[in-house]
């Protein structure tokens, strides 16, 4: 165990409407018993890949085997080998939890005895036994998700596909779903492929992470190794004045000890409210030197907490570069990747002062997967590239094209 590949993907592509390459010649293997995470922003091709592997979509090029079965030649065998928990809820709300499972069991031709036993077992696994006979419409979001996971496992699949398993769930529920996923993997040796655009989730759950961007694999490794590749620390400078941002950028780009400089608008890097708690947990080990450099007169306070949190990270704040200009008015931040960050901070502050740059705050942290994502794709995971209109158009076409041809 461990060395056998349960999924083999070779040069898989999906082209929608003859022009949009949602997935571009990706190849990878998944070992039996591992948790592999697809990390990427919306529209990166994660769901499209899962849909091809689950035979819901026919690939345009390439081939793949799931549990030894070819996805194009033996779709039924592939479908029996996998459980798929979709991104959006797919339960029948008018049926009870048990009836939803029973429907699934019958649809997958489980024999009566096996079906009954398996339903009980799965209900217990996700701790829904006492609510099993209530209508699903009375369930909470987390309970629905757990029921879907139970259902995905009912027919003894070898691989479980989880598409954004904790999207839209509150932090406690998210942690409980994480626990369930980990237990499944450890105790039952189920191979799990999940997609996420939460770096925290990928970091916490996955043995290996496949970073996918615009349909291509840009990195594939363990979270530790991915982070280790970024030697040094990340120093974040928060600056309010836009011209100062540019000045600071050119100032630090010249320094040899700065390996990388990236500029973000402050809002884009703000995590959604439901991820905030986790973010705060992680930040405990982080030194914050907030506000002390700020001008006394500004008074508006530049720390993150006071900024208006963005509600939907799925629809990021964007700069529209044609037509009506809606420039971001919030603070900017400069991410500097440097060696030995804590010792560099005094120097950074001194250099900034000398150049007349007002720093609102300075933060220091170890590289996270956010930084890894940034370094391999050149942009923030919560940021979409291109103008808003262009992105909306692409998203719309993808949505339309995606479902167009299912292999029923």
């Amino acid at each position, binding site marked *: 165990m461990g060395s056998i590949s349960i999924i083999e993907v070779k040069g898989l592509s999906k082209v929608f409407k003859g022009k949009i390459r949602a997935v571009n010649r990706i190849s990878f293997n998944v070992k039996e018993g591992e948790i592999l995470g697809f990390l990427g922003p919306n529209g990166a091709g994660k769901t499209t890949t899962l849909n091809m592997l*689950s035979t*819901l979509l026919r690939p345009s090029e390439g081939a793949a085997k799931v549990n030894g079965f070819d996805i194009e030649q033996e*779709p*039924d*065998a592939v*479908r*029996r080998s996998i459980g*798929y928990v*979709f991104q*959006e*809820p*797919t*339960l*029948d*709300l*008018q*049926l009870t939890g048990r*009836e939803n499972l029973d*429907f*699934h069991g*019958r*649809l*997958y*031709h489980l024999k009566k005895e096996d079906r009954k036993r398996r339903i009980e077992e799965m209900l217990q696994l996700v701790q829904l036994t006492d609510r099993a006979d209530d209508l699903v419409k009375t369930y909470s979001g987390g309970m629905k998700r757990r029921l879907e996971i139970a*259902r995905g496992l009912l027919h003894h699949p070898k691989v479980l596909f989880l598409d954004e398993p904790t999207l839209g769930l509150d932090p406690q529920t998210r942690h409980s779903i994480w626990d369930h996923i980990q237990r499944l993997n450890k105790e039952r040796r189920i191979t799990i492929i999940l997609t996420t655009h939460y770096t925290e989730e990928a970091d916490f759950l996955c043995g290996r992470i496949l970073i996918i961007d615009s349909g291509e694999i840009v990195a594939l490794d363990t979270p530790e190794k991915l982070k280790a590749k970024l030697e040094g620390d990340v120093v974040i400078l928060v600056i309010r004045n836009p011209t100062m941002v540019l000045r600071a950028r050119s100032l630090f780009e010249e320094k040899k000890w700065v390996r990388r400089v990236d500029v973000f608008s402050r809002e884009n890097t703000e995590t959604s409210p439901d991820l905030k708690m986790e973010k705060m947990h992680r930040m405990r080990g982080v030194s914050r030197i907030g506000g002390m450099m700020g001008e006394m007169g500004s008074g508006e306070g530049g720390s993150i907490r006071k900024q208006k949190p963005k509600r939907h990270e799925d629809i990021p704040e964007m700069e529209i570069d044609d037509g009506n200009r809606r420039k971001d008015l919030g603070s900017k931040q400069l991410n500097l990747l440097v060696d030995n960050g804590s010792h560099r901070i005094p120097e950074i502050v001194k250099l900034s002062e000398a150049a007349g740059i007002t720093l609102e705050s300075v933060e220091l942290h170890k590289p996270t997967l956010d930084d890894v994502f940034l370094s391999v794709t050149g942009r923030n995971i919560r940021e979409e590239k291109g103008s808003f209109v262009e992105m909306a158009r692409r998203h719309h076409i993808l949505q*339309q094209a995606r*479902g*167009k*041809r*299912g*292999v*029923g």
Partner: protein
Amino acid sequence: MQTLSWQAVYVVLLRELKRYWRAKARIVSSVVQSVFFLAIFGLGLGGLIGGIGDISYLSYLAPGIIGMSLLFASVFSGVSVIFDRQFGFMKEMLVAPVSRTSIILGRIFGGAVTASLQGIMIMIVAGFMGAFEPSLALALGAVAAVGVMFLITSGFVGLGVAIGSSLNDFHAFQLLSTFVIWPIFMLSGVFFPIDTVPAPLQIVMLANPLFHGVELLRWCLLGVGTPLLGPFGWMINLGVLAVFNVLMIILGAFLFSRAQV
């Protein structure tokens, strides 16, 4: 993949039954609505007209009202594939190792069974209201009528599925309801016999599958047919209905299988 799985057909049908049974308010309201039609039109218009041929207006009306209820229940059941898509349950069915044809046949037969159950309830209520003459012939006719109901409803669920698979949202259904379903209902000979309308309208009515369904129900339950089609009119009715039924099921299954998830 493309083989038909009767197990899957059965499971999907079972789900339809469960969901139908759970929506008791809907069952009660549709039966009561039909009773209102029967009572108010039967007594009101009946008092004015007296009867049609040898039969009372209430008796004439009853098979038509059953047909009306079958039409609305079955088209709505078919169109509700939109809801399955909207609430995501469709994906759960489509990722299973069974063909889309099995799923849609289960959906169509499930819808036909539930709509027919409703028709049977209205038939029984109409019987208690005195619409039918109790006899051995009626008992046999009622059994035949159940078969006819299934034929009518499976055809119209098929039509509903075809509509539901082509529409993207439920709002467009309002238009279809006004321009397709209501005309089908109004021109099916529920309230007036075909030989009382001008010839062009007669042609339209003859092209209406529900007209043949209602005529057939009338023949089963009252033993009468329209003089327009002669004594063997019921065979024509049955033939047209059967062709409609097969065509609609095929059309529904086809459009469903190529619809986006």
